[in-house]
């Protein structure tokens, strides 16, 4: 597999609303994600994490600053699976393949990859929450975008399912080495997954601290070193919230 694309964000600003009601969500945010790097972005709510992903995914327009994804349209996973309820698991994964003219047979292989080989013909409402999010993951991979943006994709799942999906995602990333920008408010999840954790300050968002994670993979969420680093990140986050920014 060829080298994935980097993400370069430079001085990005974004506000919502107009006039006096205008709220600045991002103010001059700069960050870089190297090709094939797994970066987690943590921050309190209101720190503009989701705003940033919307901008990088090309769904929204920034007011200022520049953004480069090397010409690829990134895949994006939301907190909700956002599957088409009328399509089976396989048809949901086929949708991006059809849109980009890829081979539809790929869908079955991707469902196998996320451990859903026997569920291809189920409708989303016939699957559990974890399985739906697996389908969404397979669908994101089907875009073959080599940049994967994830907006708290496992936040709505129970702890056991979440652990499972962490393993799955790590395994996939080790195999494919796509560039991942993963947003979460859970420091432990960030350390479990990332090669580097960026902490965003809130209102307006900019990078306040950076933590490299040099733990061997595959990791376990119960690991003590992992917990210690997560605690440090957690402290930083709480300080930021206390200082109001």
């Amino acid at each position, binding site marked *: 597999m060829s080298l994935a694309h980097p993400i370069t964000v430079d001085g990005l600003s974004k506000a919502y609303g107009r006039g006096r009601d205008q709220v600045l969500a991002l103010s001059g945010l700069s960050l870089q994600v190297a090709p094939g790097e797994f970066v987690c972005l943590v921050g309190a709510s209101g720190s503009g994490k989701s705003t940033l992903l919307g901008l990088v995914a090309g769904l929204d327009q920034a007011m200022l600053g520049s953004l480069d994804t090397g010409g690829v349209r990134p895949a994006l996973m939301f907190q909700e699976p956002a599957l088409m309820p009328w399509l089976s698991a396989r048809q949901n994964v086929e949708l991006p393949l059809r*849109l980009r003219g890829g081979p539809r047979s790929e869908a079955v292989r991707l469902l196998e990859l996320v451990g859903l080989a026997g569920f291809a013909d189920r409708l989303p409402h016939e699957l559990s929450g974890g399985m739906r999010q697996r389908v969404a993951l397979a669908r994101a991979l089907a875009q073959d975008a080599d940049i994967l943006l994830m907006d708290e994709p496992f936040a709505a799942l129970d702890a056991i399912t979440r652990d499972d999906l962490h393993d799955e995602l790590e395994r996939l990333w080790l195999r494919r080495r796509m560039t991942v920008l993963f947003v979460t408010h859970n420091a432990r999840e960030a350390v479990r997954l990332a090669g580097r954790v960026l902490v965003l300050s809130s209102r307006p968002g900019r990078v306040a601290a950076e933590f490299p994670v040099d733990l061997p993979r595959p990791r376990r969420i119960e690991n003590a070193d992992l917990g210690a680093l997560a605690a440090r990140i957690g402290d930083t986050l709480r300080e930021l919230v206390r200082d109001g920014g």
Partner: protein
Amino acid sequence: MAAEVGLRVQPVAALSDLEPRAGRGQAAWRAAWPRLAAVALLFAAWQAVVLSGWKPDYILPGPVAVLSRLGGEARTGVFYQALATTGLRAVGGFALALAAGSGVGLAVASSKTLRSAVGALLSGLQSMPSIAWFPLAILLFGLSEAAITFVVVLGAAPAIANGLISGLDHVPPLLLRYGRVAGARGFALYRHVALPAALPAFYAGLKQGWAFAWRSLLAGELLVTVGSRPSLGARLNFARELGDAEALMAGMLVVLLVGILVDALFGLGGRWIRRRWGLAE
């Protein structure tokens, strides 16, 4: 002590064990008996009114007389001609309304200007009794098929358009966002995301549109008699002119039965959509 507070575990039977499994025939009977009972009650009430002697039975005949008249008519060719004429008009008019309503609905849903221009007009048209169009239709087209079709389409199309508009308005934004992430733009976004997501509401509009079409059609056939073509509406009119109450009520029963039948068909389709879209168990 521990033994006293210990829970006594009893095997719990599955629900399907508690309720004896019904055969196909039994299930059909369970679904059918309330309807059959309602029909029987209706006929009983009707018979009671006839027996009370409120009207002489050449004006208000009883159910037995009407049903046997209907049975007799069902053996004549002209009855089926009438059914076919009315059926074809209904299907043709509804198909035109479907095309017009979908086109208008799609245009209005996707253009802010059009919406502010004709959105309110569409809702107004939908609540306008279609029979109010007939005088104009007759002026424009004479006593012709075109006059009937014109009114059927005007009756049904606004409901269909409004169904599509409301469906498109209520597409979950997250699905549209996903569609754009996956690279769907313009028509592809409609085809793969917005239109299928709007289908349940569109279907409800179709069902309502059908009801309007059927009403408009019968009203039209009462007012506009094209040549000597037999139709369900025309037969009602003739029966009234001839003072033939049995034929009149037999005709009304046919109109009612067609309505029930088509409604049942729409119900089948609706259930399938609700299941597929995860809106029902």
